[in-house]
């Protein structure tokens, strides 16, 4: 709202001396059938179905706002953010609450999976075959058995049109 020289969250420095083990832990999600992941260190909470208040006239990728224990969290629907078709009516979304730049966001995914340890050296660059919708928001891919896991670029996902 206002430019404020000292935002209240300035003190929230990134966790110091993170061991590499924690840094390579990823929470897997499924969006429109595609396996993807976000770093666990950014995740603050995983919630089930939430009441989301729509914000008319806001950018389409913003699903609305939800109240996370008194804090208003902006919900971003990964499907619309990635330009994928909307969920079927009746299909519910899970909220993955992440913190970026002192702001909380809720990423709406179809399913939330497990936490995996994915080492950076195993990461492969985005393959040519990757759906262009994903390319913009992918930091790379990991092969998981017969599936391809897309590592999501959370900062890029949340760079809403300011």
């Amino acid at each position, binding site marked *: *709202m*206002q*430019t*404020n020289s*000292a935002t*209240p*969250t300035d*003190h929230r420095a990134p966790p110091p001396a993170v061991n590499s083990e924690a840094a390579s832990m990823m929470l897997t999600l499924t969006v429109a059938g595609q396996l993807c992941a976000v770093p666990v260190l950014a995740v603050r909470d995983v919630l089930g179905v939430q*009441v989301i*208040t*729509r*914000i*008319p*006239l*806001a*950018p389409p990728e*913003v699903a*609305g*706002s*939800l*109240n996370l*224990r*008194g*804090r*208003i969290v*902006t919900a971003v629907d990964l499907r619309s953010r990635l330009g994928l078709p909307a969920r079927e009516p009746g299909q519910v979304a899970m909220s993955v609450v992440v913190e970026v730049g002192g*702001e909380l*966001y809720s990423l709406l995914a179809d399913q939330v999976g497990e936490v995996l340890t994915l080492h950076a050296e195993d990461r492969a660059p985005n393959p040519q075959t990757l759906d262009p919708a994903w390319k913009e928001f992918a930091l790379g891919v990991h092969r998981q058995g017969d599936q391809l896991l897309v590592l999501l670029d959370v900062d890029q996902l949340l760079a*809403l*049109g*300011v």
Partner: protein
Amino acid sequence: MEADDPLWQEFAAETAEHLDALETGLAGDGAVDVLFRAMHSLKGMSAAIGAHGIGTLAHKAEDVLGLARAGRLALGPPARSALLAAVDCLRGQRVALLEHRQDQAPPPALLARLGALAEGRPMAAEIPPPSLPTREDPLRATLASRLADELPDLQAAPGRAHRLADLARESQMWRLAALLDGVSTDADRPAALGRLRRALKLLHPKEQPPHRFAGSLHQEAQAVRMALPGPRAALGRAAEILAACADALGDEQAELLARQIQDLAMRTGEEPAQRLAELRDDFASALAAPQLMPLVERLRPAPPPLTPGLAATLPPSTHARAAAAMAAGRRIWRLRLGPLPTAEAIAEPFLARAGEVRGGAGPPEALDIFMASELPPEELAALRAEADPDGGALTDLSAADAPPPAPTMRVRQDRIDAVIALEAELRAAALSLGDAITAPQARAAFEDLAALQARLPAAAAARLASGLERLRAASGAAERAQGRLSIALGQLDEAVLELRVMPFSSLAMRLPRVLRATAEAQNKQVTLEVRGEEVQIDRSLADLLADPLLHLVRNAVDHGIEPAEERIAVGKPATARLLLVAERLPGRLVLSFSDDGRGIDDTVVLARARSRGLISAEIAARLSREEIYALLFLPGFSTRDAINETSGRGVGLDVVQDAARRAGGAVRVESTLGQGTRFILDLPLTAAMQPVLLVEAGGQPYALPAGRVEAVIRPEQLPQGQALTTLEAVLHLPLAESSAIVLVRRPAGLLALAVERVGRRTDLLLKPLHPALAGTAGVGGVGVLGNGEPVLLLEPDSLPGEAASAGSFQASRFPAEGTSRP
């Protein structure tokens, strides 16, 4: 009543005692000290329990009694009747609070009446004291003469009091009637006669005192003596009876003694209890004496010795006199005189009114004068401001005997933010608890079960009945607990509000630099004066106002202030003057920012708005002054052609209006061509809570600022010619059937907004919205409802699409109720 809560029990019991003491004291000739303390305790207790309505009224009444205690107000019939009216009102408020957990506000007329008394304005002519007889009333005149005639007989023939009581009722003098009834029914007849006699003395203060009854006080005095070591409440009652009986005999000295005991017995707290313990033996011997006399001298609290701090500050020669002044209940103040030759001349009239000089100290350029004064700090401050408006002569006034300031702690701002966030969370939880407890479904379920009960076999019905009874008791307890919770939350709210206030000066101190930079760049001479720097403002407001204030300063220099030569040419001083005033009014903060520049030229504004394509020629011709000024706040409006380095590009006064609206307030402009312009920001005390009206569109709730809602009407009530749009259309939602129209005030005129459903009015706790979304058109913010659900606060002025839809959505297209829209 809450049987399980000691705090409420104590409140119920003690307030009843204080109110009784006040009523008897006011109806009779109770010592002013006793009355003052009773009112003071009442105020304290109501503050402790969070009953603001009672507290407000008690505070006003205490002011009046405080003046009376200081000997500056006669406690004559007008004051007494006003205070009795206050006691009656306090009783009602107390009952409402205890039985319904409702904190009722006192009637403003009564507050005004007490306020007028405290300020020494005559009131008798304005509001006739209701409890006093008017001499013109023939019924009352008859009553008065019959009372005078028959009073002496009442002692021997108390049955006669019945007829007099009826007569009093006919004259609508209920208090008198009750007292007369007491004469025939009260077991303690002399006391009842005494209370009656006191009331009569009050009714006819100028006449001969009423008949003195015969008798002895021996028995009553003995009773008080016996009660001295016992519980204080019993002692208080015994002392009251003795006082009343003493009044019956017209024995004023005895009454005073009884009042002293009553006062100490009925006041709450450690100090009176201790005094009573100290004086118990003295009271006992005074009560045993053949002639009852008050303990006047002994009752004064021991003169407090000078505190070491004060003794060190004051010149030794003044110690004795200062101690005497403090013993007499006055405080020692230090007045520092500035290095002005006229300082002493200015100080003299101040000192004459404020108090007595006790000594002086310090070098001549910063002379400290010590004075003893009984005036409250506010009054001294007002006198000082009156004597020395500039503050150059009387540079400082502070209590020399002030206790050392409470220790302060430095707390990181984010810790406070965390507390504030928790408080908000707690409040949301409490709101949803309240919603859950009062949910209509629960009541409906009770009714269903009760209906079922009638159809069940007797044995089952009985079990259901007892189960229902327990459920009702439980839900009643939950409701009461919720009532207490909301009162406690109110207190917490206030405490938290105090945590996040900052003085206005910290907001204003950035301005001079900006002003200098802006003025220098344009070769203008401008000074800025800030008033109300000490006004405390909420941090949520301060954050919102920081940029708009800077902008107002730049705007004034860029557009308002003329170049020096132009000012001189029209006879103004070359240096222009900006004035920023912060003022805290009840429930509001008003900032006014004025310049003495060229004022706003309507024609220039209109020409600019037209060239920017903001309005058409026909509209321009129809606009009122206010509507023309409203154009200034439109985004993209700037009356300056040259883009300069300070005001920059594309930022207009709309940021000011935007901030005011986000805070839930409004901004308006006053201007006189050639003389200057004033921007007035009228803001709530906090930007965190806003009263709203909930409406529904597309199945989702939205909030409209309640202050902007003109009316809610049914579709058929839409005024002729009023353009209509639907909330769904404005928000680009699928159309739905509308059931009501909300008329919203906007600078550009009324906006008729058809909505699917109108909900309740409520207070919305506003939360920061993501910066990327805060700028979304039509969005004023996001708040949290009682059930925790976020709700969007709409900003009526920036709701998009209305310009296009205003003409296209005509009233005729509005679907009649009952028909559905495709």
